[in-house]
């Protein structure tokens, strides 16, 4: 065993290995910092170069990239509110409000130090666990994975804010959105409107961008001069590190969650992200600041997503089953360079030294990546002090471009628009968006594992020992949640940035609307959507219908409850209580819809003229009309945007979304236009 360690260390500490790792780290930094380009894009960039490389060099490069992305993608989460990847959506919840309070520096350094500890701790766990990982992974069958998914869903209780009914309804809505597409059991198509695009379901990237990023951007556009409301970065580098040190046990607990979830094939980064966020909120005594800029809300998920990336390596290396999208490409690259992952990777007589080299490269790259991120932060964080109207078109561009990465079709952008409208209303009417996300992220797992567990073990599957243990943990967690929901509230600091995790109860009058009709209409539409879910689901064979119909019924009941109280309030028959929530009621800072109009205009222009021309038009008019730029400034910024997009598309070797122009005149057009 010792000689295996020694061999791995020798492999690791050669100049050759280290220099390739540094290349990977450097690319990972760039890809991570550019919002909406995550591990999958980064790995696809490397893939063409990997072929023909010497195996250990290729692995060092790829692992370097994989290790640093969960760290560097934090920039866009905190500074712009754009989830850097699907595994870092929860960071946005508290990270972005912190940046808006002018505490970007503190949030970044806390998150980087948490990332580093998470990554190192993850690597440590993996070193210890590799030998026994095979039996461990094999002991988690579909039954246990289903119970884990249920545990994840139980976090909705923690993340529901003032109204539990809205939380459950939002979660059901997420589950229903997750049910769109081909069913896992009999392959029936649900809510697809016969479209090929919806057949494979909605992409998590698009959901994250639509639900979190776009509503924030549009909201910021009305009024805010820069992302940081104080226009300052804040002096908080050391404070952030101290925050992480103070929360060291939270950091380690979340790192453990990340490593465990990463270890299980089939759960994935976004699940670990949300479970660790839920755990962070649940284990905090004072929950009043979550969603408004609580530093712990950044530390927890960031510790988890780095260790999760490490955990993901284990099923990939030991079983050849990728734990995430970027791992799938890692696996492909291994096969291209002639390495076939399998049980030999955990065998001291065969490739175990290679596995250790990978795990420790990951740890080392984490440290290097963190150092680089901290060094880069002061300059990148300046973005939050730029006049927002100049910055907003770039953010919209990046979000649209990021959404388009999913399947590279125009439908991606249309889907983004629909999801963004949903996100805007969820935000405005206080339907907890984290609950929606948890539902969406877990929809596939809940349905597939339930069906498989019943098929393999019959309806007695929850009685398997590990399943029972997970069930007990879930019950304990729910019990703690219900206790803390009843705990008396502390006074909160007025003027906090209100987002949806609002733990205020009846006494919170700020968001309680006088005119309830807008909320009533939204709830009624949601109610209608659940009826549609049930109707569409029920057309399928029994196995494909069970899930959407059950979700639809739960959603219908909770939405009905919400609707009852809201109508009661709207018609003046009595107070609406906790379900009354409308951020826009009597808002003075101008309408959001003007900016939604800009977005819709951009999308329509893409549909007509294709991406490049639409981009030029959108930038020029937006900068002239909204930002009132000079022609010089407008053209320089437009050129920069077009340059950025063209460089990215040519590196990623993709075509930009085309419109009717491209459809009819494809042959006559040349590259950037077609």
């Amino acid at each position: 065993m010792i000689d295996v360690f020694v061999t791995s260390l020798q492999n690791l500490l050669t100049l050759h290995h280290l220099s390739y790792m540094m290349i990977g780290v450097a690319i990972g930094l760039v890809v991570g910092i550019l919002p909406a380009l995550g591990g999958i894009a980064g790995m696809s960039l490397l893939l063409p170069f990997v072929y023909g490389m010497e195996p250990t060099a290729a692995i060092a490069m790829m692992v370097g990239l994989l290790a640093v992305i969960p760290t560097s993608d934090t920039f866009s989460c905190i500074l712009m509110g754009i989830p850097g990847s699907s595994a870092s959506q929860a960071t946005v919840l508290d990270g972005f409000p912190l940046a808006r309070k002018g505490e970007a520096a503190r949030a970044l350094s806390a998150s980087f130090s948490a990332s580093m500890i998470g990554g190192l701790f993850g690597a440590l766990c993996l070193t210890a666990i590799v030998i026994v990982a095979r039996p461990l992974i094999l002991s988690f069958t579909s039954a246990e994975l289903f119970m884990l998914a249920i545990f994840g869903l139980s976090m909705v209780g923690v993340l529901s804010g003032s109204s539990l009914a809205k939380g459950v309804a939002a979660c059901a809505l997420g589950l229903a959105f997750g049910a769109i597409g081909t069913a896992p059991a009999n392959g029936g198509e649900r809510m697809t409107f016969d479209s090929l695009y919806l057949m494979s379901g909605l992409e998590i990237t698009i959901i994250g961008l639509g639900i979190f990023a776009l509503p924030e951007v549009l909201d910021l556009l009305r009024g805010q001069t820069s992302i940081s409301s104080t226009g300052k970065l804040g002096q908080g580098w050391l404070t952030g590190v101290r925050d992480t040190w103070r929360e060291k046990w939270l950091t380690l607990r979340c790192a453990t969650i990340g490593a465990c979830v990463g270890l299980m094939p089939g759960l994935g980064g976004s699940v670990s992200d949300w479970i660790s966020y839920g755990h962070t909120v649940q284990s905090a005594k004072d929950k009043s600041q979550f969603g408004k800029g609580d530093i712990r809300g950044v530390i927890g998920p960031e510790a988890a997503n780095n260790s999760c990336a490490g955990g993901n390596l284990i099923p990939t290396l030991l079983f050849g089953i990728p734990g995430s999208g970027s791992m799938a490409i890692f696996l492909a690259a291994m096969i291209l360079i002639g390495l076939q992952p399998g049980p030999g990777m955990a065998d001291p007589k065969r490739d175990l030294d290679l596995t250790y080299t990978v795990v420790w490269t990951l740890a080392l790259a984490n440290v290097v990546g963190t150092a680089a991120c901290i060094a880069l932060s002061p300059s990148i964080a300046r973005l939050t002090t730029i006049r927002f109207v100049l910055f907003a078109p770039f953010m919209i561009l990046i979000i649209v471009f990021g959404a388009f990465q999913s399947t590279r079709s125009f439908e991606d952008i249309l889907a983004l628009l629909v999801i963004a409208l949903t996100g805007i209303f969820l935000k405005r009417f206080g339907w907890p968006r984290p609950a929606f996300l948890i539902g969406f992220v877990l929809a596939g797992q809940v349905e597939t594992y339930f069906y498989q567990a019943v098929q393999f073990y019959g309806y007695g599957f929850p009685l398997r020992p590990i399943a029972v243990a997970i069930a007990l943990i879930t019950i304990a967690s729910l019990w703690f949640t219900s206790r803390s929901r009843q705990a008396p509230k502390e006074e909160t600091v007025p003027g906090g940035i209100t987002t949806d995790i609002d733990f205020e109860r009846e006494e919170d009058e700020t968001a309680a609307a006088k005119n309830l009709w807008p909320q009533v209409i939204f709830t009624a539409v949601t109610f209608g959507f659940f009826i549609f879910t049930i109707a569409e689901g029920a057309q399928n064979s029994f196995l494909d219908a069970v899930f959407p119909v059950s979700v639809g019924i739960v959603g219908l009941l909770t939405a009905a409850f919400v609707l009852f109280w809201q109508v009661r309030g709207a018609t003046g028959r009595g107070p609406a209580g906790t379900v009354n929530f409308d951020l826009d009621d009597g808002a003075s800072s101008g309408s959001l819809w003007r900016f939604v109009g800009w977005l819709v205009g951009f999308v329509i222009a893409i549909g007509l003229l294709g991406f490049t021309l639409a981009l030029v038009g959108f930038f020029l008019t937006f900068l002239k009309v909204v930002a009132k730029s000079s022609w010089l400034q407008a053209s320089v910024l437009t050129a920069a945007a077009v340059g950025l997009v063209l460089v990215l598309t040519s590196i990623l070797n993709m075509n930009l979304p085309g419109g009717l122009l491209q459809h009819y005149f494809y042959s006559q057009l040349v590259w950037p236009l077609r």
Partner: protein
Amino acid sequence: MADFTRRQLLAAGSAAAVLGLGGVRPAFSQASVDFAGKTVEWWMPFSEGGGSDVWARFFAPYLSKYLPGNPNVVVRNVPGGGSITGSNEFVARARPDGLAILGTSGSTQFPFLLGDPRVRYDYAKLIPVLVSPTGGVCYLPAKFGVKTPAELNKIKDQDLVYGSQGATSLDLVPMLAFRLLGLKVRHVFGMQGRGDGRLAFERGEATIDYQTSSAYLTNVTPLVEAGTAAPMFSWGVLDAQGNVARDPTFPDLPHFVEAYEMMHGKKPSGIEYDAYLAFFGSGFAAQKPCMLPEGTSDDIVATYRKAFADAVADPELQKAKGDVLGDYTQAVGSDIEQLYKVATTIKPEARDWVRNFLNTEYQVKL
């Protein structure tokens, strides 16, 4: 209409070449096609990192090496819609100038063979330039005590469980095979890949499984050595005459048709076997075709066929192919038509039978 005129022109052009240059035409066609400074886009209707993507990326540098003018060959992924989207887009968009080629897989062929109304590509019109076969091995838990397919009768009344990716996925082939053999197999759907199915087998949830050759060698061979799994048969390959033959990777293992004979004492036949054979050909023996768009000139087709033949003969490729291509003979040059036809055609009555079978047994609406 414009398309038709172009085709006529091209036909006229090649006819002129034949008339004018007679016997030296092949040399002429090589010289007239030059891709120097151009970029060839290899359309890939799957996302990065899938089996087909790896296959295309493996071939790309060799294709570049052997095409005249050494164009830059890039793989362009157009994923979504179970690979129907990207293939539809290819036939709508790609021009027959030799700068766009399409690589598909069994999962693209199956909806075409099943007559899925959303398919707008027609394999009969695309022009194949390379066909890559693949294979796999079916195995059982050793505890059943079944050592050869001849003993499969021992478990024919036993309920077996198979972890499947879906009734219309590549796992349709094992579904038809098990049914033909007369085994009672329950298919549990929703697996995300064959790896998931193997995991279910290792956990003891699934009691029959197959893995593609390379995954079998790395992941199942240790189980066989440890005495927990027993190999039954390989799917086999198709020889130049279109007969099922033993898999070169597993020369000691009977192929499916032999296994059937060992179990039943006679060769399989009938409409169910026709259906099986069509999907086996499309899903394994000729799994990955690479094609040029309809209307591509004979010159370009000949250039591509020669480039792939040269690439496959390249000792460097042979040395590097490892698990990507396995030991299978790549169909290039004149061998290609026969294998391509197997992969992309099905008798109408066999198609109707499968559609009806999927509809009545698994409520698949097509």
